[in-house]
């Protein structure tokens, strides 16, 4: 299968290892990767802020560039939800409505793609650590990917998964919410970090680097020993 990899801006600039791991895993499974270098952003930040005109401006190149793609895979539940769930709404009644729906139908969040589309759970990975999994809200509730990452982690050699209290509670990132309502976002993140630390895990694993950006920032400030890692990096570990 020819897979177009959509790489969100923060993965590109801050967490390139996530995308590199995804490439490694998908190529190992025998697929061809195409990276549309022209694309940087799905348009979610202006969309969530209410600036839908600007969001459409960001999203139009994505629709255009990916219109012939066979399948699009994203290593983020949040950007995945933007393209899969919110593009059709953003372009409802616009000339691009049909294109938005077509793209939504062939776009996949990474763990969902592996488990649901490819039917693969065992990637031969080994990660001998105790981990806890943080559900990113967009993945969990917009894309309904609760079980997929857990199925994948269950097959990783040496990995012990310990669920944290209220695993499904938001970490408080929420995009621009994290700076517009910084004290609320921080309080939510502190609750999340405390629940994660309580498990005694070495790593907080998530399918969304945007949540981890915030959680890692808090952990760093609080000097907690627990670290964060994207699930793709875990699955690419040998």
């Amino acid at each position, binding site marked *: 299968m020819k897979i177009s990899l959509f790489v969100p801006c923060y993965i590109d*600039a801050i967490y390139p290892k996530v995308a590199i791991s995804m490439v490694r895993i998908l190529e190992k499974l025998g697929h061809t990767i195409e990276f549309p270098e022209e694309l940087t952003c799905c348009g979610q930040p202006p969309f969530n*802020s209410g600036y*839908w005109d600007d969001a459409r401006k960001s999203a139009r190149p994505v629709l255009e560039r990916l219109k012939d793609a066979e399948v699009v895979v994203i290593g983020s539940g949040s950007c995945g939800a933007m393209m899969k769930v919110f593009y059709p709404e953003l372009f409802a009644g616009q000339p691009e409505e049909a294109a938005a729906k077509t793209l939504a139908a062939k776009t996949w969040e990474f763990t969902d793609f592996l488990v649901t589309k490819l039917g693969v759970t065992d990637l031969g990975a080994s990660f001998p650590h105790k981990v806890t999994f943080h559900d990113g809200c967009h993945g969990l509730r*917009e894309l309904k990917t609760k079980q997929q990452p857990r199925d994948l982690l269950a097959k990783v050699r040496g990995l012990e998964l310990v669920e944290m209290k209220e695993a499904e509670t938001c970490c408080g990132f*929420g995009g621009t919410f994290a700076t517009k309502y910084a004290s609320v976002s921080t309080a*939510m993140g502190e609750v999340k970090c405390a629940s994660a630390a309580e498990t005694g895990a070495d790593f907080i694993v998530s399918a969304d680097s945007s949540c981890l950006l915030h959680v890692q920032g808090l952990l760093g*400030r609080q000097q907690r020993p627990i670290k964060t890692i994207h699930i793709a990096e875990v699955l690419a570990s040998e």
Partner: protein
Amino acid sequence: MSETIAAPRAQFFQDADRITHDLEHRRRIQAAMGKYYISRYSRQALFRDWQEARQTAAETKWAALNELDKHLENFERNATARGTQVHWTSTSEQARAVIVDIIRRHNARRIVKSKVMTSEEIHLNQLLVELGYDVIESDLGEYIQQLKGEPPYHFVFPCMHLSREEISDLFENHLGTAQTHDPEELTMIARRVLRQKYIDADIGITGANFVVADTGMISITENEGNARLTAALPRVMITLVGIEKVLPKFSDLALFLPMLATAGTGQPLTGYNTMYAGPRQPDETDGPVEWHVVFLDNNRTTLLADPQQRDALHCIRCGACLNVCPIFKNVGGLSYGTTYQGPIGSVITPHFRGLQDWKHLSGASSLCGACTETCPVKIDLHHHLLHNRRNAVEEKRGFLEGMLWRGFTFLMNRPKLFSLSIKMGRIFQPLHALVKDTFLDPARAWTKSRELPEIAHESFRDYWKRRQTK
């Protein structure tokens, strides 16, 4: 980022900032909600199919609203046939005037209220107290909040933020009772005070959870029995209710009462679900001689006119969306400054009281969707927060924020420029240490509580280029 700081917005930020730093508050609310989680979700698990029940409830409400006019007429016809007096009010002022007029006609002095959220909405208590009436809230939580001089913290659990010690102090100050930290003894103090109030009251004011069209009934849900006493002993009963609360049929309650109880408190049914079908009838032994049902619009028709968000009128005020909301749990109910707190309040308040003044509540969400997932009548809550944000910008585009997003889009649509800016960021990032923890820090909103991530030595884009040329 907003240009004009409206009073409600400033108040929200000020209160939220204070409460989010109050670790005792956080502990107390987390503990209370922890109990809620256990009882609610274990009760929900007993349903043969909760999701199908939800869909049925949502469709019933949807169909009820689609014919709201017919159901209200139907209710009116059935209720008046049994001697109920029905009043229609568009605004808070009109509703207050109708109620004061009824009180005056009966030369009433003493008024006992059971929980009426709509009366908070129209600020009825303040007016009645100003006019010199003896008004008392009879729901325990509401009574405590009345003594404290504070609005309800949560529209189902009005004083959940108070400790037993604080309540004991309140009772000592206002009632002169001895200190006790036993919740049962504290409850009994209120019971003793309030019992005589029901008996002596001239007027009882209640709210309503459901308006049943086909029988002309209203249904009131409660645990304490205070609403039942309020509707049994005073000579005159007034019920203040929003026009959206209709259910077409009496039998619809068979679904809605257990769903309200399960989602609200995790009970099989709330202690008392009482259906009133008129004032005291000729062959009956007690009850009010007059019953007035006062319908309130207060911009509900504005929300009704928005088909995208009309489902917010499905709300049965169970409070579940507050209980699962991580924002509510961290900012607390009073920070909202609204009658209805939490996600449902953030959705409907802009419709009721003005979008520009209340849009900050729709912004105060990470859009996590826990509210939508838990709602027993399937209100698309978190997406409506998004819709409110969009509507606010379409109505009045922010100047600074508008510039920011224009710049953002400009940059993101130019991948080479984006790439360059990342490289620049990498070069300049070490200099950030110079301004970090000062007000010159451009990322202060982030760095006040969080470390900044480090920009990678090689972006994925660069890695890919290197790989392709290999």
